[in-house]
């Protein structure tokens, strides 16, 4: 059932070397740097995205994912979902507006797989990159590398798939788009989404812990890990 979660909005990733990482995301993936903050974080977006950023890079001595954020319809929805999470027994943390530049307040929580997620309602609207909002061309000039079109999904590895499923589906209104079963019928991967459009596919994936700790294994904007379709 729809609860007002709209789409993946941002992800904050820890990188070992900011210079190398920015080159990777801009020159190879084709994302656009939109800002930096006084903590040294770099903000980027893909060209079709209308909000100011979808990717935040933070330099650290261990790579990984700090959190993934979902945009919800409005402030009333945010208030309601926050209540629903608390009522379900999920601990929530308040992150004030402007902690991420030009982003409103966020509600952060950790799911049983061990990963941190956030909900927010407001982020600065900057429009698509490189095309005018009046009589626009179909495609901007000057895109680099793979010309990634949007932040589409994350793939996470972790334990407790069932309990993680329950929060996303029962509280936040996601549904199961696909699953992977082993020969005994045990679910080893679940693909969760909030989208009803056939053109927008799973936005969030939880997998059984393989040999890794809780780092994200890959993240490719605009593409599914299975490579089946965008």
């Amino acid at each position, binding site marked *: 059932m729809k609860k007002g979660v709209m789409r993946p909005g941002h992800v904050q990733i820890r990188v070992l070397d900011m210079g190398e990482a920015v080159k990777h995301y801009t020159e190879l993936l084709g994302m656009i740097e939109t800002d930096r903050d006084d903590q040294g974080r770099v903000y980027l977006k893909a060209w079709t995205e209308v909000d100011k950023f979808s990717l935040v890079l933070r330099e650290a*001595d261990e*790579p990984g994912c700090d959190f993934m954020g979902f945009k919800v319809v409005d402030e009333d929805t945010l208030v309601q979902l926050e209540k629903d999470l608390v009522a379900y027994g999920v601990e929530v943390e308040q992150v004030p507006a402007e902690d991420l530049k030009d982003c409103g307040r966020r509600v952060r929580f950790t799911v049983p797989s061990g990963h941190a997620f956030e909900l927010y309602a407001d982020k600065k609207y900057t429009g698509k990159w490189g095309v005018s909002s009046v009589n626009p061309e179909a495609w901007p000039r000057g895109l680099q590398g793979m010309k990634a079109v949007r932040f589409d999904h994350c793939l996470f590895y972790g334990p407790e798939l*069932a309990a993680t499923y329950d929060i996303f589906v029962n509280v936040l209104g996601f549904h199961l788009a696909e699953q992977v079963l082993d020969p005994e019928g*045990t679910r080893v991967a679940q693909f969760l989404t909030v989208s009803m459009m056939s053109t927008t596919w799973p936005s969030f994936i939880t997998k059984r812990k393989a040999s890794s700790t809780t780092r994200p294994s890959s993240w490719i904007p605009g593409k599914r890990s299975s490579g089946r379709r965008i």
Partner: protein
Amino acid sequence: MARFQVYNCTTGDDFTCQEGQSVLKAMEQWGLKCVPVGCRGGGCGICKVRVIEGEYRCGKMSRVHAPPEAIEQGEVLACRIYPVTDLTIECLEPSAPGDTSEQTTRALR
């Protein structure tokens, strides 16, 4: 351009590494598989080796998989070391696999 020989004493393989090239990248270019390959970016710890002999420069590596005390012992990630002399390396177990406890999650129909 300077070239250096890298000898893996665990497997007996040896290969040439160009100046400025990582040991792991050189190994892959020679079609060898004597060190396991993971993220190739200093993050995952899969390609951990011990350098027994020789000098090298280090790139950035995850502190979890290559803490400063390990680096001092020559325990480094092959994807992030750049030889400045010939090297002798040996293989190590990849560091810190996570909890692999079994799941009981059932299929949803």
